[in-house]
């Protein structure tokens, strides 16, 4: 439900900006902002729950376009109830503010619904490096009784793993365990 009174954009840690100043992509501020500037900027905005990947790499930023003198950023939530959605939107607003872009606006879009197919190759690699097994297969092949394909342990690479729970630490993940290295790990569910 919309919260009463929109708060000022802020990061979770009060004294820490959403993007460290040395990570804000350089641009010639005497020149008008381009779409490419915005894509580069938003690629520095991380998902608060999966800080290894950016909102662009997760496929949450669907479109950036100038409309009537405003930069409109279309953002799609990963899950209906994802509690990070508002924070991500605020982070994008804050990032635009930090980069000196004053005419930006977020538009939340629900359709087409987000799918893990939109996670970029770089995003998948970063998830793996962060210790989260990236989604396997294509969402279109999932069926009601479908069984997940073999999930590979992000720590040791073994395919000898088992699912502990359909749901993990956040809505987008499931909990697995490696039967070789014995480490538990999160799997980014394929939806």
């Amino acid at each position, binding site marked *: *439900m*919309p*919260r*009463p*009174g929109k708060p000022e954009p802020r990061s979770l840690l009060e004294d820490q900006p959403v993007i460290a100043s040395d990570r804000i992509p350089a641009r010639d501020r005497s020149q008008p902002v381009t779409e490419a500037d915005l894509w580069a900027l938003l690629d520095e905005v991380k998902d608060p729950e999966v800080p290894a990947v950016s909102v662009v790499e997760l496929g949450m930023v669907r479109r950036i376009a100038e409309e009537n003198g405003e930069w409109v950023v279309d953002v799609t*939530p990963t*899950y*209906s*109830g*994802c*509690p990070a959605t508002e924070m991500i939107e605020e982070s994008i607003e804050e990032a635009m503010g930090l980069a000196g872009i004053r005419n930006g606006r977020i538009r939340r*879009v*629900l*359709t*087409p*619904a*987000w*799918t893990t197919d939109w996670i970029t190759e770089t995003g998948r690699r970063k998830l793996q490096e962060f210790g989260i097994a990236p989604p396997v297969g294509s*969402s279109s092949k*999932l069926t*009601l*009784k479908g069984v997940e394909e073999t999930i590979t342990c992000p720590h040791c690479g073994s395919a000898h793993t088992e699912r*502990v*729970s*359909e*749901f*993990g*630490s*956040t*809505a987008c993940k499931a*909990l697995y365990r490696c039967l070789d290295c014995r480490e538990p790990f999160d799997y980014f*569910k394929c*939806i």
Partner: protein
Amino acid sequence: MSKTMTQQEALQEYLLRLADSDMILGQRLCELCGKAPALEEEMALMNVALDLVGQARNWYEYAAELINDGRSADDLAFKRDANRYRNALMVEQPNGDYAVTMGRQFFFDAWHYFTIAALTQAPDERIASIAAKAAKEIQYHLRRSSEWVKRFGDGTEESHQRMQTAVDDLWRFTGEMIEADEVEQQLFKAGIGPDPEQLAADWRGLVNEVLTEATLTPPPEDAWMYRGAKVGHHTEHLGFILAEMQFLPRAYPDAKTW
């Protein structure tokens, strides 16, 4: 229900039913936070609850726009009393033992799955987009709850007995979910809502399949059923849920931080 209900009014009513069922089941599941039988189960239940509350928000926001009387999505959730709530009787039933929790979830998920699948085809773009998002989440819920019904049913003697008891006890609340009233008939004729006969057939088919695989006996289709939630007549449980859920925003209506 007045016979002169416009399509707009029928749609508002239907959106509230969808939203209220999501909201109340989400609230019920949250009662298990800190008390679920296992840590993994607790995470799963809270994730399902989160999905449901998120879906409720999407429906409430659209309902608030259509109703357009100054009430927000929050007002619809927190400032209506039990007789204005339109959730299915099924979802307000207490958590009981885990067989009841999962049986209730399964009966609801099966209904939710086919209903939302139909709504993804609605000509109203807003409905179709909310449904498309929800459909992916519900598929997960249904897979999980049907697995639990099978595991309990086809498990030990005690788990089988408890699951059968849960199915038998909850059965009287299933009729209402798959029996269309005039609101649902009207929306189906307008091309918005699911085909009531198809929905009932799909629901029965899946429920029978899962119960049979779980070695459970499906109760008779013509068993006596409770009705009334669609016009605001609820079981005694809803008032207690609302009392807890609505206390804070009613007592501190200007609270802005949480």
